[in-house]
């Protein structure tokens, strides 16, 4: 069973190699990519079921004992994230094939995408800090290629900001890793808690801050967010969908992991303030924009604030709320970008000035947008309501009134800016130029893209429908995450 863990990384990497060899045959590339993505998803599902029954699974590379080997560790949290992540990667891959994102100009799409898949799997499974850094680099490298896939002026311009900032982030991360190694003599996440606890408070705080800055930039928290709304909109829609849904959440995953496992006893008031500012800045930014992709990009930032808020509040209840929030947010955000992709494909633009009256032409498309949009704003009965309810009720229990006020106000403003997109793009009369393109059936013209979007939106509804069992799973996962002793015991034995 434990041998499955490395396969979640090896299969997509091998697929990327095959895909590079088959660079001239798009059909082969597609088959290989789909097979690898399906296999990775299947492995992830197997792991999550196994881990939930039998507890944390580990794989020690090279057969060394757990304390010196390079470990892959899957507890409930990482297994869940791996499952959600690989499912989204599979969905977006199919969508991209439907959109022909892998056409002549960008035959590098499939290899890069599979490397990204491997990096995502690795980042979730990494059991030591240096490996976490390496897998971050793997997925970042793939994301650089995907972001600048067509090599157009706009992509190079925004790609430069993205690459340079992420390289700087990597350096902060490596510095943190090096200093942690200098202070403790290990990078194994199972051994670190004990050794870090023995360090003086000041040094521990410094190390913690270095990791927080590095992962915070990846997760786009205040004040390290400015690269995100600049770079994501420039990418092709299927690429920005997977970036929006997944990449920032890997930063959040790393924050949760390091804060609970390595630095459990920290005063997180500052982090709570950062969370509040992240929410507010994100939503203010969104309100000022008039392009769908940019509005949605700013909302990623404000939503990250809720997750960081859960981490900052601390405790099993808050962490389980954060995990549920991540579980809900990844498919919801992905589906919003997928709908945006269909709109852009159909009308040729994502600017609200140039798109109008889509609801008249396709009520289904409007519904597909409205469901995740209302879910993002946190309206019942959608999954976002439950996510927000979880985080906010923990804040109420801990009597952090001001963050509750911020969270609710931001929620309201999210609704306002989602309605702005709805009013602008879906309501009203269709533009004269678009009427001639056919009055109805936007979805029917793009069957694969629409099918995937419908599936992902249905998935978000299923999260709301099965919220009870899922929330209990998140609670078990949060118990895993906060219980350092069981993590250590599982890895070192």
């Amino acid at each position, binding site marked *: 069973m434990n041998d499955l863990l490395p396969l979640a990384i090896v299969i997509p990497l091998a697929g990327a190699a095959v895909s590079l060899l088959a660079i001239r045959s798009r059909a082969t590339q597609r088959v290989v990519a789909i097979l690898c993505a399906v296999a990775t998803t299947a492995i992830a599902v197997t792991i999550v079921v196994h881990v939930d029954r039998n507890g944390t699974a580990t794989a020690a590379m090279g057969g060394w004992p757990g304390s010196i080997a390079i470990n892959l560790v899957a507890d409930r949290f990482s297994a869940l994230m791996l499952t959600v992540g690989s499912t989204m990667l599979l969905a977006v891959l199919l969508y991209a094939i439907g959109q022909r994102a892998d056409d002549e100009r960008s035959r590098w799409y499939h290899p890069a995408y599979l490397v990204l898949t491997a990096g995502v799997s690795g980042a979730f499974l990494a059991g030591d800090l*240096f490996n976490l850094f*390496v897998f971050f*680099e793997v997925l970042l*490298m793939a994301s*650089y*290629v995907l972001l*600048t896939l067509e*090599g157009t*002026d*706009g992509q*190079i*311009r*925004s*790609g*430069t*900001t993205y*690459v*340079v900032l992420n*390289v*700087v982030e*990597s*350096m902060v991360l*490596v*510095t943190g*890793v*090096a*200093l942690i*190694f*200098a202070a403790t*003599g290990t*990078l194994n996440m199972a051994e670190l808690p004990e050794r870090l606890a023995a360090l003086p408070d000041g040094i521990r705080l410094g190390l913690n801050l270095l990791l927080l800055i590095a992962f915070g930039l990846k997760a786009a928290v205040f004040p390290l967010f400015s690269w995100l709304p*600049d770079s994501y*909109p420039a990418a092709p829609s299927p690429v920005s969908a997977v970036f929006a849904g997944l990449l920032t959440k890997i930063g959040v995953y790393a924050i949760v992991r390091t804060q609970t496992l390595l630095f459990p006893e920290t005063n997180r008031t500052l982090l709570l303030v950062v969370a509040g500012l992240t929410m507010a800045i994100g939503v203010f930014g969104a309100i*000022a*924009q*008039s*392009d769908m992709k*940019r509005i949605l990009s700013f909302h990623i930032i404000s939503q990250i604030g809720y997750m960081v808020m859960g981490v900052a509040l601390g405790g099993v209840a808050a962490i389980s709320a954060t995990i549920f929030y991540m579980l809900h947010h990844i498919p919801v955000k992905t589906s919003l970008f997928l709908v945006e992709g269909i709109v852009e494909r159909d009308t040729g633009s994502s600017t*609200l*000035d140039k798109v*109008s*009256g889509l609801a008249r032409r396709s009520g289904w498309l409007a519904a597909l947008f409205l469901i995740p949009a209302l879910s993002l704003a946190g309206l019942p009965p959608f999954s976002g309501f439950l996510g927000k309810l979880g985080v906010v009720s923990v804040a109420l229990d801990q009597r952090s009134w001001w963050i509750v006020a911020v969270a609710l106000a931001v929620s309201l403003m999210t609704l306002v800016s989602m*309605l*702005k997109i709805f*009013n*602008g793009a879906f*309501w*009203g*009369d269709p533009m004269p130029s678009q009427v001639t393109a056919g009055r109805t059936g936007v979805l029917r013209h793009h069957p694969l893209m629409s099918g995937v979007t419908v599936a992902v939106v249905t998935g978000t509804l299923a999260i709301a429908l099965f919220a009870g069992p899922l929330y209990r799973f998140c609670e078990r996962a949060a118990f895993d995450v906060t219980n350092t002793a069981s993590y250590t015991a599982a890895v070192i034995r």
Partner: protein
Amino acid sequence: MSFGQAILVAVLAGAGTYLVMHRTLTRIILGLAMLGNAVNLLILTSGGTPGEAPVIGRTGEFTDPVPQALVLTAIVIGFGVLSFLLSMAYRSWTIDGNDEVEDDIADRRLADEPDEVVDHGEPT
């Protein structure tokens, strides 16, 4: 960490940070290379005092081999990222004739015409 090495790390990091603040991509790349080397040296020194090569059968004070393995990985990653950035700078040069990092177009429009964007939510 020896004093000389500490000074070297500080100088490389300082010069690198200065170069990264520039607008031309070439300078940013040079700055990132210097920053990367500063960090790599820092990793190398995190292993503690230097000593004998850690070979089975020998005795004495060994050097910690782990940071050396880490620094190798970090160097390879740094090399890959820098070559990608160089190719981006070249691409930028073939498109624009320069390699300056420009302002975000949408940001600039928002900053220039704040009144224009207020009513975009209204159906037209």
